């Protein structure tokens, strides 16, 4: 919706070669590489000529208005959707072949809250695809689940039923499920949309710690908040432009959201 009312100018230069840093500036191969990607649902073009390159160890925040294509881009990177034009490489391979090496935290839990399952069992499902295929959950999977819960400081919830958790607790458990599979990349879709601000900063502090060993791609609508934490912000509204956190200013936000957004003052701690 926003895409059609926006002036095209800020995005015209967004797809040139400068978006992907030249080879010399990249010491390591990108963990996520998106090239000339376009995607549409029926008649509506959701993504147009998107280019994105994420190097190991980065913490990239993907922001943009609702219906700007953020979730679609994530689904394509996760291999849940197939690109119509363009190319995606994750860890150097087509997404479908490496989804097990990605930890994914969805915006909304895609399961019924009243499902009869304990937190520990739900987290252990992050281990699927590791080890032998047949049989019950093994002790090794339970241990990994408990380690992941400990890492997100939610080990005390292990025996609880999933339906009894608060929004913030559930978010930690979903993060633990993603970590249980020992991923190399962590992808989060609006992880803090349904929790209050205090818990939100706890989650981000946790992500900052995880970023020491994982590459993180995080979708958010809250550009002001995430720029304190991420190493780079990518702005997506059908097409993609991105910059370091310092470049996120009132003008960018206006371009992106069409000028209806208050700019919240925030500090850059790093």
């Amino acid at each position, binding site marked *: 919706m926003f895409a059609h009312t926006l002036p095209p100018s800020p995005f015209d230069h967004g797809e040139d070669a400068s978006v992907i840093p030249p080879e010399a500036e990249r010491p390591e191969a990108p963990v996520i590489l998106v090239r000339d990607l376009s995607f549409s649902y029926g008649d509506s073009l959701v993504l147009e000529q998107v280019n994105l390159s994420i190097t190991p160890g980065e913490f990239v925040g993907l922001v943009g208005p609702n219906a700007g294509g953020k979730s679609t881009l994530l689904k394509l990177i996760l291999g849940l959707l197939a690109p119509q034009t363009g190319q995606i490489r994750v860890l150097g391979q087509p997404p479908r072949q490496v989804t097990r090496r990605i930890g994914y935290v*969805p915006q909304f839990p*895609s399961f019924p809250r009243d*499902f*009869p399952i*304990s937190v520990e069992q739900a987290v252990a*499902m992050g281990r699927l*695809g590791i080890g032998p295929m047949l*049989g019950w959950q093994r002790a090794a999977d339970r241990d990994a689940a408990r380690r992941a819960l400990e890492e997100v400081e939610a080990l005390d919830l292990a025996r609880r039923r999933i339906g009894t958790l608060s929004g913030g607790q559930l978010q930690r458990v979903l993060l633990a499920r993603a970590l249980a599979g020992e991923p190399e990349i962590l992808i989060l879709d609006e992880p803090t949309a349904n929790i209050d601000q205090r818990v939100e900063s706890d989650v981000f502090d946790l992500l900052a710690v995880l970023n020491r060993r994982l590459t993180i791609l995080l979708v958010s609508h809250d550009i002001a908040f995430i720029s304190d934490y991420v190493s780079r912000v990518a702005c997506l509204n059908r097409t993609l432009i991105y910059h370091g956190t310092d470049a996120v200013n009132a003008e960018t936000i206006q371009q992106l959201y069409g000028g209806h957004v208050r700019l919240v003052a925030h500090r850059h701690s790093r």
Partner: protein
Amino acid sequence: MSEFLSALSEHAFLQTALLAGLLASLGCGVIGTFVVVKRIAFMAGGIAHSVLGGMGAALYYGFDPLLGALLAAILSALLIGTVRLFWKMQEDTLIGALWAIGMAVGILFIAKTPGYATDLMSFLFGNILLVPTRELWFMAGLDLVLMLTVALFYRQFLAVTFDEEFARLRGVPVTFFYLLLLCLVAVTVVLLIQVVGLILVIALLTLPAAIAGHYVHSLGGMMVIATLLGGLFTSLGLGLSYGPDLPAGPTMILLAGGVYVLSALLSRFLTWRGALRQATRA
């Protein structure tokens, strides 16, 4: 009831009936739990009813109706599952159509087969007292297939019923296991048809598991409790119907239905009282 117990030791057909009920409850407990937590009762109903097509055709061409039922149940499970996975827009209408088409085909076949009336009634409402001994072996075989499949792929079935999207991301072949689960539902339907008939199958497939779900909060626990409840309802229903010479199937279902309604009210009351206690303590 005491009349039933004394008759039970004398008549082999009553012992066979009791065993048939117990064999059926194993399927209804294990697969019924998946049906309840995955909320696919409507699809299970569609599978159960369209089975009549296969039974009618088998009868007409002179095969064992149960074999026809098994083939038709699996075919209809695959059709309904494919509709659900790839044609979401009109899922309920399409399942409803398959449901009705299956029944219509069955009734046409049965109408053209001589001596249809008694067969039709026992297909629709079951006749546990007429289960031949060799069919017990058939039922035991189906149970074995069910248990083995669920035990071997327990984590995959759990993942697919809990969270399809996440299961797919973990490399689980979701489409395959979803269709396999529906095939297991189809096998269970065939197990239960002997006992309560295809119209009432859906009750034994859902009610024991739903009652169990009121009190236990793990999939395995639900399976155990639902199997025990299924055994209780079929045995007690058989016993209660024997004295006054009532049809056994509907007696079992009324029993299960009555307990379900009471249990739903009770669990509602317990939740309400728990909330009240929390509120007054605060």
